[in-house]
Structures are given as C-alpha cells and as structure tokens.
C-alpha cells in the first residue's frame, strides 16, 4: 500500500491505496465522485478526463499514486454555490448532450482547453476535444456549447445574468 495526499476539488484527502489503483477508480470508488466516468478504459474515449494540476488528463491512464501531492479537479468541482459553470450552462442551453455519458469528460477537456486558450475558434474547439468521443451528438452541439460558454464568460453574462440553477434541477 502507498500513502497518498492530494487535493480534489479543493478538499485535501489522505488515503492508503494500492499502487496499481488507477486515478479514476480512486475518484469513483474511494471518494465516491462518480461523475468521472469509465468509458473505453483504453485511453481512447476521454470520458474519464479530469484536471491534474490544471491539465486535462485521462484518469484511466494515470495511477492514483502519480497524483500524490497534486491538485485534481473533477466535474463535481465545476459548479460553484449551486450555480452551473458557464460550460455546463452552455451544454444545457445548446443541447450539448443526449445520453450524457461522455459529458463529464467533454466538460473537463473543454475546461482544460479554456485554461490555455480562453477564446478558441471552432477549429481550436474541435482540436481541443479530439481526445473525447461522443456517440450521440455528432459533436456539433458540443462545439456550440463550448462557444456559448466562451461568449458568456467573455461578456461576463453567465454568473451575473443567468438565472440561478441548482445542479440537477429540471
């Protein structure tokens, strides 16, 4: 067993884990943060994408022990004070999902993209989401959702003007 100490969505955690435990299993099974999904399990689909020290990574291809001393952000860390993150709002407004399985990974990959490029054009959005597969939408509405978010973030209209929404409310 190995002792790991890491910050997840702002909360410090210390656990003894098997070195072979994948980060995605640590998040889902130890911390019960099941928003991060296991899709293909072969580092193709991106459903397990989280941010590790500010960079989007596939949590099925990272060991929990590699994250010792790191900061991790998962989809559960996007909404603040019951308000959706502008990216989540974009997926809502632009119908950026159907079944929703890929959505947490899409959101975190898009979040990672916006960290390095806050104003991506359509091509940059598509390139930034190249590591994420969606079998429902054909991607068009996902791109529109990210564009919606970049617009509201640039205008500052998301958190101030958008109606307060509780995550999970219909």
């Amino acid at each position, binding site marked *: 067993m190995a002792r790991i100490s890491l910050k997840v969505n702002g909360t410090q955690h210390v656990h003894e884990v098997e070195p*072979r435990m994948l980060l995605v299993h640590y998040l889902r099974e130890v911390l019960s943060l099941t928003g991060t999904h296991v899709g293909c*399990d072969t580092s193709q689909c991106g459903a397990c994408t989280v941010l590790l020290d500010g960079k989007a990574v596939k949590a099925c*291809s990272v*060991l929990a022990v*590699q994250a010792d001393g790191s900061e991790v952000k998962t989809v559960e860390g996007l909404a603040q004070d019951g308000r959706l993150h502008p990216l989540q709002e974009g997926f809502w407004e632009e119908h950026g999902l159907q079944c929703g399985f890929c959505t947490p990974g899409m959101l975190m*990959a898009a979040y990672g993209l916006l960290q390095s490029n806050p104003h991506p054009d359509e091509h940059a959005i598509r390139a930034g989401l190249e590591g994420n597969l969606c079998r429902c939408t054909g991607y068009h509405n996902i791109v529109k959702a990210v564009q919606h978010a970049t617009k509201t973030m640039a205008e500052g209209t998301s958190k101030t003007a958008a109606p307060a929404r509780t995550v999970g409310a219909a």
Partner: protein
Amino acid sequence: MYPAPFEYHRAASAQDAVALLGKYGDEAKLLAGGQSLLPLMKLRFAQPRHLIDVRRIQGLSGIREEKGMLVVGAATPYATLAASALVQAKLPMLSEAAAQIGDPQVRNMGTLGGSLAHADPAGDLPAVALALAAEIAALGPRGARTVHADDFFVELMTTALAPDELLTEVRFPLPPAGSGGAYEKYPNPASRYALVGVAAQLTVAGGKVTAARVATTGLATKPLRALAVEAALQGKAADAASLAAAAEKATDGLKLRAAAQMPDAYRRSLAVTFTARALTRAAKRAGG
C-alpha cells in the same frame, strides 16, 4: 485494478532513479507520463514488479538553449514542446510533431524521453530525433554518456539504452542559417499513431540543397533514415521537381512492417506523398 501488483517508487533525483534501477534490475520499469506503459500494464502485456516514477524529478523537465543546442529534459511533456515559443522559433518540426501526438490529454502527460525510450515503431518523435541528428543523453551506474540518434534505435521497441540507464535529456543541434524542417503525418484515425510519418530537415544555399536528413516512422520495425532520399537531394536544386523526384525514393530499401490496415503498395505510395509534402515545407522554411 487491472495492472498486476507492483511497488511504486518516486525517484527524488536522476541519481536516485539510477540507484533504484540498479537495485531492482529486470523487475523495474521507469515511469514518466505513462501513456504507453500504463495501457500495456492494464492489458498485462507488461507486469513490472517495481515502477520508478521519474516524472517529477527536478531538472528532468524544461527547455533551454545552450551552446548551439536546444536542450530538452527527458520528462518534458509533448504539450510543453508544442506550446514552446523557443521550440517553435528554433525547431518548428519538433513543435509541430509534438502537437500531432495522440490527443490533448495524452500530450499533457506523455514525454519526449518516454517516447524515445519506448521506441514505438509508429512513434512520431523518434523520426524527428533522427532528422534533427539529436544527441540523447543517458545516466547510468557507469556515469553519463551520449548516444547519437543514428545509433539509438536498435530494433522494434529496442534502444541503445542499457537496462540500468535513465534517459536524461535530448540535445538538438541548432541548424545553420538557410535551414528548415517539417513533419508530415498520416495518422491512424483511431489511435493517432503514424501510419506514415516523415521528418525532413534541409539546408539550402544558393538554391541548392547542401544538407538533408529525412526519416520515416510507422513503416518499418523502427524509425529509419531515408538515405536514398537524402542522397537524391544532395547538391540538387531545392525546386518542386527535384524534391518530388527525391521523394519517390522514400521507401527504397525499406522492409515494411506488417500492418493490417492497408495494402503495402498504398503505404509505400503514402510514404512518397508525405515525404514530398515534408520536403516542400522544409524547403520553404529554409528559404529555398
């Protein structure tokens, strides 16, 4: 828990990593970004008893210019190479190749040293290292040494590194004025590995090619210099006709590795096309 059980060691320094390698011998594997090793371990194709994590070793990451060389730490991620203004300005072939590896998430973890040491026959950066005549630095119990890229790739996923050596940094000689390089790739649509990848570096003076290094990946069991292309370019005009004629020799003498995706004749044809594209852009960057 898909990987077989192992013990995890986070190396504090390059020397520490070498000491751990010496201690655990054949039972140990070095772990950097893990984007090749961890998928192999999940499938249990690899079952090391000890993993030695070198990703966070101070001084093993970073990019600097030094004595006519661009020196890149082995644990530098692809994303850093792709985004580096210094790399883009000095060796655009390296940054554009790094930007085409896998996908953004893979590029945030995978490292230059990992790619070269893993020596996947369809990896992108091994071809770039060959075309740029990189010097690959290693540290082992017998001290530090440097291996030229020409001598580094031995066979399928086999390099000149000894089992107890750590790849520490890669030194790319900065080409003289009038030089240009380019990397062109036809990726596997699913894996993004190169079905064909071509790295070309040219120096042009007075409209003629005075130096050329061209390397391919994805075709054979290891990355290879396209020596027939290089010979055909030497001393010739850097014009479209000469470059196209040289590109025709892209697979001369090359034994194709078996690949189920497409017929051999098509792969050879792709190699010619992508060599021509790489040469054309390299010549343009050289100002030829």
